[in-house]
Each structure stands twice: as structure tokens, then as C-alpha cells.
């Protein structure tokens, strides 16, 4: 390829923020003082705060320069597997920024915040319809928090039945956060291997499911990008032993309009609004991880819940079996506004189309690349496809080298070394918002890299060369932690 997207340009250096500025500068407009100064007792007051003073121009230059060192979805394809880096619509930002939504105090008396409560109630109903579940709480602050909510609900349900169980089944194709979420509820994860086709077999579940096992945490579609087609049978096995089925819905972008999780036997699941429903990741959050349940688990949902009383919306804590409160207020409201705007902008056909095109893009990449990279499971995939570095190892090239070389071509690398079930995994999730042209260029870059691996491996070993930094020493960072300046 002669025309690489990645190139070196003018990259401005920028010191640490406290190395800028001078004492006495300010970037803040103080309000006029219309009341007398009221001192606090000397012994309560500090005199030791060492923060820099910057002008507004200092602040603008500093953060603008920093921002140019980031790669983002707005700048280009960001095919991180299991992260669903789809385009984040601009209109959603406009809606979330509306003054009545962004400046609303959470403790407003209910008659003064009907609009926000109604929006949340509508979003809950929409998510129930999209998943095929019966009831939703928007409280969980992120995906892992939604997992925790799900585990707490299972724990509370079993406790209500008078049972204490100590284990939970987690397949090797589940998301990485699942074991830690289960451990917070005191459950010991029981690992189960997926079958040779990357799919969990009912027999494998049957072999470990017993009456001391609370249930299963199954990621569906799983982290290999495959639909767990035995989920109904597995659910029956788990239910027969009195357990509950938790589905990690982080990959729901593959199956909107297609799958009904309720019919699949799922009791409780979570969604990631910052994946499937297009809200921006913000460099690592805030996300939102609504928890969705079947009717029989509704009494255990977090409180407060939005209720309709005498024709008006309100918040109620009057659910004695609830797991309790999960965040200070009601969850990440401004993320919900964005997701609501997205669902309304697409409508039911648009959402279903999004999943179709996401799966189309992933399968197209799988097909175009499989002659050049080892495909971990050679079968049709859902929203993502997983390759490995098996073919490139002969040239002493690793997944890390391939990922870093992709940066020189102008792409954010895929997720690497995950899922663990595929050694040297390269997990590619294009999402539906990448065009065929964009994907072709990305695929061509990966093919060119596969050739370089054979002919000029040092190009990969030395990569990346075009970004601001070359490879960073992570061992040094962990051995001698320097976490503040």
C-alpha cells in the first residue's frame, strides 16, 4: 500500500499541567462578592494546597494539544473487539446537553421532574422490548456494575428461597469481568471449557451443575463472536437444578431484532448503553449497564424504581425484596438521554438493520482475511471475528507486533490477547458504521502487514513509528509505580 492513512505530521509537545502557568494567573471568572466575607476558624482551614495557576489560554492550549495525541472513532475505524466502537451520533450530544436535562437536580420534587422520569420509564420499556425481558433498572453505572446487579439479584432470589449456594458456572468464552463480579457476591467461579467449535455444550454444563451452584454467567454472543446456540438447553439444565441464568449482553449489538433473550431461557442480563446504544466511551467511561430481568426477578431489582402513581411518575423504594441501591442517585442519566435519542432516531427497523450490518461487516472481514491470518474458529461469526498470530509466529512475529504495526497504517488495533481461549488472539469488531471502503482499506493494511511479517519482520518489531510515542515500558511502570507528579 502506497497511501497509508497513518502518517507523521506536526505533533506538538506539551509539558505537565503544573509545569505551565504562573502563580497569580487565573482561568476562572469569579462571581461578584455581594455578601460580607465570613472566615472559618483557623484550625479548620488548610494552607497546603499545591495547585498551579493557569490562564484560560494556558488551559485551552494544554488540553487541545493533549487531545491531538489520542486516536478516536471520530478520526477513524476503531475495531476493538467486544467494545462496539460504533459512531457516536452528534445529535445525542445535543440532546444530553439541553439545559433542562443537564442542569436538573436529582432531588427535585417529583412534580418538577416529570420529563426526566418519563424519559427513563420509556427507555426501560424500550430496552425490555428490545431484549425480550420483562423489567429493567437503569441504575448500574457500567457493564461490570450491571453484572454485579445481576449477581446480587440471583443472590437475593436464592436467599429469599432460603438457599445459600457457593458456586457459579463461568465458561472460558465469558467476559473478563464476570469472575470478579461473581466473587463480590461470594460465589466461587467454576470454569467450563467451550467445545471444539467455540460453543458451550449442554453436557459440559450438566457435568458441573448441581444444587450448590447458583447458576451460570454466559456471554451471548460470546467473546469468540459466536452465538451460544445451546442456550435454551443449557438454561433448562440450570433451571432443573434450581439455578438461574445470567446473560452478559455486552455483545447485544449483534442480535437486535433477532434474539429474544426471554425465550432463550435467560433470567437476568445486562446491556451496555455505551456499546450497543452508541453512547461515547469517553476514554473509559462513563458507561451505563441497565439490568433486565424476567417477571419472577422483578421484585429484586435495585431501588429506587420509577413508578406511576395517580397519573404521575415518581420514585419508590417500597420494594422489600430489592437488592437495594447501587449508585448515589438513579444511574448515568445523561448517558440514558443519549441512548434514548439513538433508539428513537433508528426506530425498530433501524436497530435491526444495525445488527444486520454489524454482522455483515464482521463476516466480510473474516472471509477476506482468513487466507492471511489463522482463524481460531472457521465458522460464520456474529459481530466480531477472532484471528491469532499462529501463522506469523514462524517469522517470530507476535500479535503485539501486528497490533503496533497497524498504528503505522493509521488504525487503532483490535482487542489483543483476549479471549484467553485463543492464544495470541486478535479480536476484530468493525460495527455497522464502517463502510465497505473503510473496511477494505483496513483489511488491505492487515494483508500488507502479513506480507511484511514474512519479508521484513523488523518493520513490525520496531513498530509503531508514526504515533507520538514508541512502545512504552509497562514493566518499568509496574515495578516502580509513579502515579502522581
Amino acid at each position: 500500500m502506497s497511501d497509508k492513512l497513518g502518517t507523521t505530521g506536526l505533533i506538538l509537545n506539551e509539558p505537565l499541567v503544573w509545569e505551565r502557568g504562573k502563580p497569580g494567573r487565573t482561568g476562572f471568572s469569579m462571581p461578584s462578592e455581594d455578601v460580607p466575607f465570613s472566615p472559618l476558624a483557623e484550625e479548620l482551614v488548610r494552607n497546603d494546597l499545591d495547585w498551579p495557576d493557569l490562564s484560560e489560554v494556558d488551559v485551552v492550549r494544554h488540553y487541545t494539544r493533549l487531545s491531538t495525541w489520542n486516536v478516536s472513532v471520530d478520526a477513524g475505524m476503531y475495531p476493538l473487539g467486544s467494545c462496539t466502537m460504533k459512531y457516536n451520533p452528534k445529535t445525542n450530544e445535543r440532546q444530553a446537553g439541553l439545559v433542562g436535562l443537564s442542569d436538573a437536580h436529582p432531588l427535585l420534587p417529583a412534580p418538577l421532574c416529570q420529563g426526566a422520569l418519563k424519559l427513563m420509564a420509556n427507555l426501560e420499556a424500550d430496552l425490555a422490548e428490545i431484549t425480550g425481558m420483562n423489567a429493567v433498572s437503569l441504575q448500574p453505572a457500567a457493564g461490570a456494575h450491571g453484572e454485579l446487579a445481576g449477581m446480587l439479584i440471583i443472590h437475593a432470589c436464592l436467599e429469599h428461597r432460603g438457599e445459600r449456594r457457593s458456586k457459579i458456572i463461568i465458561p472460558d468464552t465469558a467476559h473478563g469481568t464476570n469472575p470478579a463480579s461473581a466473587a463480590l457476591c461470594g460465589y466461587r467461579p467454576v470454569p467450563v471449557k467451550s467445545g471444539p467449535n467455540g460453543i458451550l455444550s449442554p453436557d459440559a454444563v450438566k457435568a458441573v451443575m448441581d444444587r450448590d451452584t447458583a447458576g451460570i454467567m454466559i456471554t451471548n454472543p460470546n467473546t469468540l463472536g459466536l452465538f451460544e446456540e445451546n442456550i435454551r438447553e443449557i438454561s433448562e439444565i440450570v433451571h432443573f437444578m434450581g439455578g438461574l441464568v445470567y446473560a452478559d449482553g455486552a455483545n447485544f449489538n449483534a442480535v437486535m431484532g433477532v434474539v429474544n433473550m426471554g425465550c432463550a431461557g435467560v433470567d437476568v442480563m445486562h446491556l451496555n448503553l455505551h456499546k450497543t446504544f452508541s453512547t461515547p466511551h469517553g476514554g473509559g467511561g462513563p458507561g451505563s449497564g441497565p439490568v433486565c430481568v424476567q417477571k419472577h426477578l422483578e421484585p429484586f431489582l435495585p431501588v429506587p424504581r420509577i413508578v406511576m402513581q395517580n397519573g404521575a411518575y415518581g420514585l419508590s423504594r417500597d420494594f422489600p425484596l430489592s437488592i437495594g441501591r447501587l449508585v448515589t442517585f438513579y444511574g448515568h442519566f445523561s448517558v440514558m438521554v443519549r441512548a434514548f435519542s439513538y433508539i428513537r432516531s433508528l426506530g425498530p427497523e433501524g436497530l435491526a438493520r444495525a445488527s444486520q450490518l454489524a454482522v455483515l461487516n464482521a463476516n466480510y472481514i473474516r472471509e477476506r482475511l482468513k487466507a492471511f491470518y489463522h482463524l481460531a474458529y472457521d465458522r460464520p461469526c456474529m459481530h466480531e471475528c477472532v484471528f491469532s498470530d499462529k501463522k506469523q509466529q514462524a517469522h517470530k512475529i507476535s500479535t503485539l507486533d501486528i497490533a503496533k504495526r497497524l498504528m503505522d497504517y493509521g488504525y487503532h488495533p483490535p482487542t489483543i490477547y483476549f479471549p484467553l481461549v485463543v492464544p495470541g488472539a486478535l479480536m476484530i469488531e468493525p460495527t455497522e458504521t464502517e463502510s465497505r471502503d473503510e473496511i477494505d482499506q483496513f483489511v488491505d493494511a492487515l494483508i500488507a502487514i502479513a506480507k511484511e511479517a514474512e519479508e521484513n519482520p523488523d518493520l513490525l518489531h520496531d513498530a509503531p513509528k508514526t504515533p507520538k510515542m514508541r512502545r512504552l515500558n509497562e514493566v518499568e511502570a509496574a515495578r516502580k509505580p509513579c502515579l502522581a507528579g
Partner: protein
Amino acid sequence: MRYFPHTPEEIDQMLQVIGLTRLEDLFAGIPTTCQKTRAMNLTAAWSEWELNDLMDAVSDSMAVPPAYTAFLGAGRYHHHIPAVVTALKGRTEFLTSYTPYQPEISQGTLQAIYEYQTLVSRLVGVDVVTASHYDGATAMAEAALMSVRITQRTRIAASALIHPFYLQVLKTYLKPTGYQLIEIPRDASGRTDPAGLSDVSGLAAVIVQSPNFLGCIEPVSAFSDVIHHAGGLCISGFTEALSCGLLKSPGSQGADIVFGEGQSFGLPCAFGGPGLGMLGTSKAYMRNLPGRLVGKTHDLDGNSGFVLTLATREQHIRREKATSNICSNNSHCALTAAIYMAALGGTGIRKLAEINHSKAAYLKSALKQAGMTLPFDAPFFNEFVVRFPDGFDRVYDRLIDQRIIAGLALEPFYPELKSHYLLTVTETMNRKSMDALVREVSA
């Protein structure tokens, strides 16, 4: 749909490469028993025009400043957000990137979060602060679990004057663990009573919030002294980060773990979320911290740069033995707070905090002069409790008609505090509005 770039011809060509004819064929592997039997029953797609109209109507229906004068705080605060903060946080290089797993092309986020960690650690008086948590309440719950891991003890004492919602979250997190939670009662001055901390031996930690839910400044050192003698940890925090610009930091008063809510630093109230969970500790307990940390290192050419570090504590490496399950945090809120802190500066935060206190002190003394009862005499920052005459709820409703929200009724939280209201005053409140409130409540 304008977000989908595919033309019908491209779809056909791509299907051909895969060896399929229809988009529906892509889902052939999903058993029909798991499939939806009908189209989703959702509202049909809206144009951007329709969406704008509807969302404008929702927004217009909400009671927000400046149309409303709201003396509300209790965990979310109306502070002025400079335009520079809104503009910079909206740069999509920050907004539309993922967690900085690939440091070479994520240095913007990484340096900004390293600076955030530094500024907040100086603010709260500890060595290390995490890259963020969801909010103050979840940060406090994580702090409690952390104290159990460090001390190997399972009893925790928490002040009864911690934000009631924080205590509820803590109970949710503790429920499946079987760890015991003891509440330390309040005294007549509106503070937590150190004498109420009877059996300290065997405690993992004591948790206090300062300023507390009644707005009063707590004697944090008294609690840290007592618990340190008993071999436990002191956990201290705040719901109003701006107070740290004026008051002694939790770390300087002996707190081993500090939690807090950072919403005051440039984040709008947003009907309660997202906020910004702050969590920090000393170097000694650094490896027990949950959540992400950014650290300094060098690249192959010896240039300084930043990476996510100490990942061996985290869920994707340690699985069920991780210090927490947290993965996505509130990174963009931390970035926003960092921009706000940079704009405010060391001189500015002191001044702004003083203005907040002076304005609150003005309203408090004006209410006293108007004959209202002020039940608690402990020092306060920008929130305080006033006891209005019995039957004030009717006045409260009348004031709402005049677009004044006269604080937060405390009775739902503390049944014994009938007719008690928590009033909050920030720099956004002017003297005229405060005088109007005093006039109305004493009419």
C-alpha cells in the same frame, strides 16, 4: 439511516464474498426457538427535527436554574461551569476514544488522567488516587471492602451522618458478604459523636464524611486517632469536593483511605449522573486499590510517557481474585474535573470555596435574624440545617409556585428531624435570591 454507510449494491457484493444472498441468512445459526417471532414494538424512527422538538419539550418541562432558585445540594451541587470546560471536554478525541489500552495512540487521555490523579491526590492529602470510580457512594463502598482486605477484619463502623444514599449503597455491597456494619450516632451539635464509638477493637475501619449530610464539619482526627490505636483504618470522604479547597484535607487528618464525589468540579447535576467517584490512599495500600491507575514510564527512545499500570490487581488479569470488578469507570468525568481544576487553579479554588462559605453564612444568619431555629451549631461549609415553623410544608409548596425550592426536607431521612430542612448555597446564588427566601419564609 444516516449512520449506515452501506449502499444496496455494496451489501449484495459483501454478501457474495461471504457466500450468502440475504442479510437474514447471517443469523441462520441462531435456533428459531431463541428468535423473536415478530418485529420489535417500538416507536417508529424520528427525524432529527422531530427528535429536537420532543427533547426540547422534555427539557423545557424540567425545573432548573435560572428559572428556578434551588437551595438544593445533598450530594449534587449547582456550580458555575466555565465555557472553557464545556468546550475542551467536548473535543471528540477525548469523548470518542476507548479505555487507553494502546498507550502509543492514547497519550492525551493518559497524561490528562495522570494529571487528574496528581491534582486530586494533592487536594485530598494522600499519595495515590485512582483514575476514577462511578460516584462518591460506590467509591465509599469500595473503600470499605478495601479496608476488610487490608485488615482481614469484617466489622465496619460508619457515621450515621454519612449521606443516607451512600449508606444504602454500602449496605447493598455488604449484604452478600456477611460483614457487619455498625452506625455511630450523632451528637447535639450536628456531628458524629466519637463517644458513640464504643467497641473499636476488631474494627476494620471507621467511616466519616466531612462536611457531613447535615453540612457540619466533622472532627476527622478524633476518629483517626481512636481507630489507629485499635489497629483499624480511618476512611474519610466528602460529597462536596469544593470544600477541600478551604478545609483541612482528609489525608492530613489521618484518613488512610479517602473517598469523595467530584461532581462539583465542572460536571453538571445531570439528574444525578454521571458523577465522579474519587478514591485514594497511601503508598502502603496502593496495591489494594480497586480500579484503574495511570503511571509514568518511558518509551523505547527514552521519552517520558504514560500507561495504565498495576493491572495485576484488576479483573481481567486476576479474575475472581481481583481487588474489584470495575472496568469502565468515569474517565471522561475525571478529564472534565481535571480541566476545571486547571482553570480554577490553586488561588482560585481557595477564593471560590470562601465565596461559597460566605454566602451560606450570610443566609444562615439572615434566617436566624428572621426568627428561624438553627438546631446545629457546629462549623459548616456551604450547607446547613434550619428548622422552620411547624406546617412549613404548605409554605414550601407555595414557594415552588414562585419558583423557589427551599431546600431538602430531612424528615424522610431522619424521622426525628420534623420541619428540618437542609439548605445549600453555592457561588451561583446571589444576595437578592437569598433575601427573597428569607422574606418569604418569615412572611
